[in-house]
């Protein structure tokens, strides 16, 4: 019985063939390459005049810190920002893509982007990839209908919350929020609480570390405070420098 393989054009939608192949390979013992993940603490909260987003700055590749000072708060629109946890490439690509889509939409409609537009575009994309795009996001912004804060999970489900945390440090950060959040915080109180919760993630979670980034979005205004806090400075620098005495090198002639 002859089997002729005909190349059937894809019917559209995500093809899961490579996923089956990857599963088969791991069962046979192949170690999958590790991804650059952003082990991470990302948070957002709604305060009196808008939304404050916060993130740590450590990107890990397994047990190694690959980037000590990466940017996890991504631009979506002048009034909307998005923090990303999970696989760094996925969060970067998906937020970039939706940011471009929002811009085109702004040109077409002549209006400012709304947060639920970004939300719907992101969740549609993530759901169609059935969780294989490993991006967990905290989306926040202020539009004509008011301040909004949402979390988006890799499989495409979303929540609308007054305060939210995601990433490996989310429990440490959430414990600070659950203990100290109240409604109607002022800008300074909100920033202090966000910084406190990110620090809780930085110091209590191994996947998070380095510095605190903060983004404050209010009606008609946004402030991106890169490296708002640097609680892990390099404290010891040898004054002697690293010069070795002249006879240190040994030349082998054979």
């Amino acid at each position: 019985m002859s089997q002729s393989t005909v190349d059937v054009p894809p019917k559209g939608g995500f093809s899961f063939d490579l996923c089956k192949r990857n599963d088969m390979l791991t069962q046979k013992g192949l170690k999958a390459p590790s991804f650059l993940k952003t082990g991470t603490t990302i948070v957002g909260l709604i305060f009196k005049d808008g939304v404050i987003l916060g993130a740590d700055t450590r990107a890990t590749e397994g047990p190694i810190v690959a980037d000590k000072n990466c940017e996890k708060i991504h631009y979506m629109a002048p009034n909307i920002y998005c923090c990303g946890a999970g696989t760094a490439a996925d969060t970067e690509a998906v937020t970039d893509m939706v940011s471009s889509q929002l811009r085109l939409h702004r040109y077409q409609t002549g209006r400012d982007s709304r947060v639920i537009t970004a939300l719907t575009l992101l969740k549609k994309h993530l759901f169609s990839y059935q969780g294989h795009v490993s991006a967990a996001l905290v989306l926040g912004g202020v539009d004509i209908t008011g301040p909004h804060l949402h979390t988006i999970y890799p499989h495409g489900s979303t929540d609308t919350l007054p305060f939210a945390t995601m990433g490996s440090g989310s429990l440490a950060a959430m414990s600070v929020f659950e203990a100290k959040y109240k409604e109607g915080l002022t800008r300074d109180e909100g920033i202090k609480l966000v910084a406190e919760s990110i620090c809780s993630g930085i110091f209590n979670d191994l996947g998070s570390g380095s510095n605190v980034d903060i983004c404050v979005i209010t009606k008609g205004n946004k402030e991106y405070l890169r490296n708002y806090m640097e609680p892990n400075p390099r404290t010891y620098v040898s004054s002697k420098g690293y010069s070795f005495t002249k006879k240190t090198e040994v030349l082998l002639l054979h």
Partner: protein
Amino acid sequence: MTTFSVPIDNGDSMKIAEEESQRTLYPYVTGTSIVAIKYKDGVLMASDMGGSYGSTLRYKNIERVKAIGKHSLLGASGEISDFQEILRYLDELTLNDNMWDDGNSLGPKEIHNYLTRVMYNRRNKFNPLWNTLVLGGVKNGKSYLGMVSMIGVSFEDDHVATGFGNHLARPILRDEWHADLSFEDGVKLLEKCMRVLLYRDRSAINKLQIAKITEEGVTVSQPYSLKTYWEFSSFHNPTAGAAGSW
């Protein structure tokens, strides 16, 4: 000749040859976190009273913190039947110690050491007691607080938490614990941790006990519940401004 009765498990090493069905493989009825701190006069330990059977909340009146002898408090999370077994071992231990009738009694450090040995030896035989134990006590004016896990990891600290408490309560304790807390401040701190656990741990219930141990002895409070807050405006109308979404 005096003999000590130390519980050892000989049955298992003989049976390994035949079949391995006599080992603990998974826990069945489990208790969730324990949170404990040292304070001015001794040690405070908080736990809820729930015993979960998988995802069912089966038992709502389990005391997971018990007094041991005159000087110690033992709290356990994990398999409840193994906790009851440990209490039996400690009963035998304290009974035998009493029989010396020399006025000495086992302090928290000794009990902690004994428990570490028991847990580690069981783990080495691949038949663990599926618990994380918290041992607190006061003897001769010195307070002691330590923890032993089911694989035998044991250490002492000023504040400990088990299970989910590791992730949710530890950050709060690391930030806000300081030496010489008063009793009221200590209880407030523990309640803060227990409240976060109640919000965010699915197996926690709103019925907790706080146990106190000082030089004078042990007091275990009556069960009570914490006040919770659900009045955020976002919770009242989560889809405001985004009609049709969820």
